[in-house]
């Protein structure tokens, strides 16, 4: 599955010439809406042949990108699922469900280029340090390292993905 995700992300980056999830989503005619959602971060919704990524207007811009990328992952990987049954997104970094895990991997692969992490990893920095340096949640560093390992890079994922500290 990681291979499929990497291939799809690569295809999108090539096609739209950007890693910006907002630009890619609008290129794909997905509606992006900012709404008051209380403590929810966002969700993906399919109705009458229109696709929506809804993002909480209150959260900061960096996080908006992560959520947009994550929901874009649901659009690419789980649209069939959203059409029939589900509206997604409450727990952004919940890795207990397969679709969440896949959307997280998708978001990470889209937002973070391989060499960004590898440059740090070669110098043996901790994941927390790398996350702080890049100003991203530490989960993303972990997800990315899992992808990199899958691609054959010399890196050891720390598998902290079940952490729930970003849930709220």
């Amino acid at each position: 599955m990681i291979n499929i995700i990497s291939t799809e992300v690569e295809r999108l980056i090539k096609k739209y010439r950007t890693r910006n999830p907002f630009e890619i989503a609008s290129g794909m005619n997905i509606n992006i809406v900012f709404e008051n959602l209380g403590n929810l971060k966002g969700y993906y919704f399919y109705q009458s042949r229109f696709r929506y990524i809804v993002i909480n207007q209150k959260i900061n811009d960096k996080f908006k990108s992560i959520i947009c990328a994550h929901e874009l992952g649901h659009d690419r990987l789980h649209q069939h699922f959203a059409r029939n049954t589900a509206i997604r997104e409450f727990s952004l970094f919940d890795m207990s469900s397969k679709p969440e895990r896949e959307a997280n991997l998708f978001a990470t692969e889209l937002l973070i280029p391989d060499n960004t992490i590898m440059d740090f990893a070669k110098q043996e920095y901790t994941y927390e340090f790398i996350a702080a340096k890049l100003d991203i949640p530490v989960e993303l560093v972990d997800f990315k390292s899992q992808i990199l390992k899958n691609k054959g890079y010399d890196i050891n994922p720390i598998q902290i993905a079940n952490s729930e500290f970003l849930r709220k």
Partner: protein
Amino acid sequence: MNFGEKVKKLRKELGYSQKELASNIGVSTKSIYNYETDNLFPKDKKVIRKLAEIFNVSVDYLITDTDNRNALSKTEDNFISSAKEDFGYKGKKEAEALVEKTAAMMAGGSLSEEDQDAFFQSITKIYFDAKAKAREKYGTKK
């Protein structure tokens, strides 16, 4: 209780006179009088919706002869009624399915009531947005 009795009862609960209620809804005092005594339904569906809004009850509660005010939550119920009004039987089915989906999702209990309300409001808004877009683009008929 029928429609007229409900209007009268709810109006008194609010402490409104017929005249006050009439001006709030934008109809004549005589209309309110007629609803209450002859059990006449307003000709314009919007009036019923406004009444439901002012009384803080669902449209279905007002127009059916049952006394169960809380069968479905008012918001959910009004959403289903408006979907039905705008998009007919299919809209009603869609709205019901959506309510069911969101209920299933909320069942985990990790969301506060406030968040649930915010989410439901958002999703209904987007539902109507999608339907409006679909109507424009594909000419979906009523």
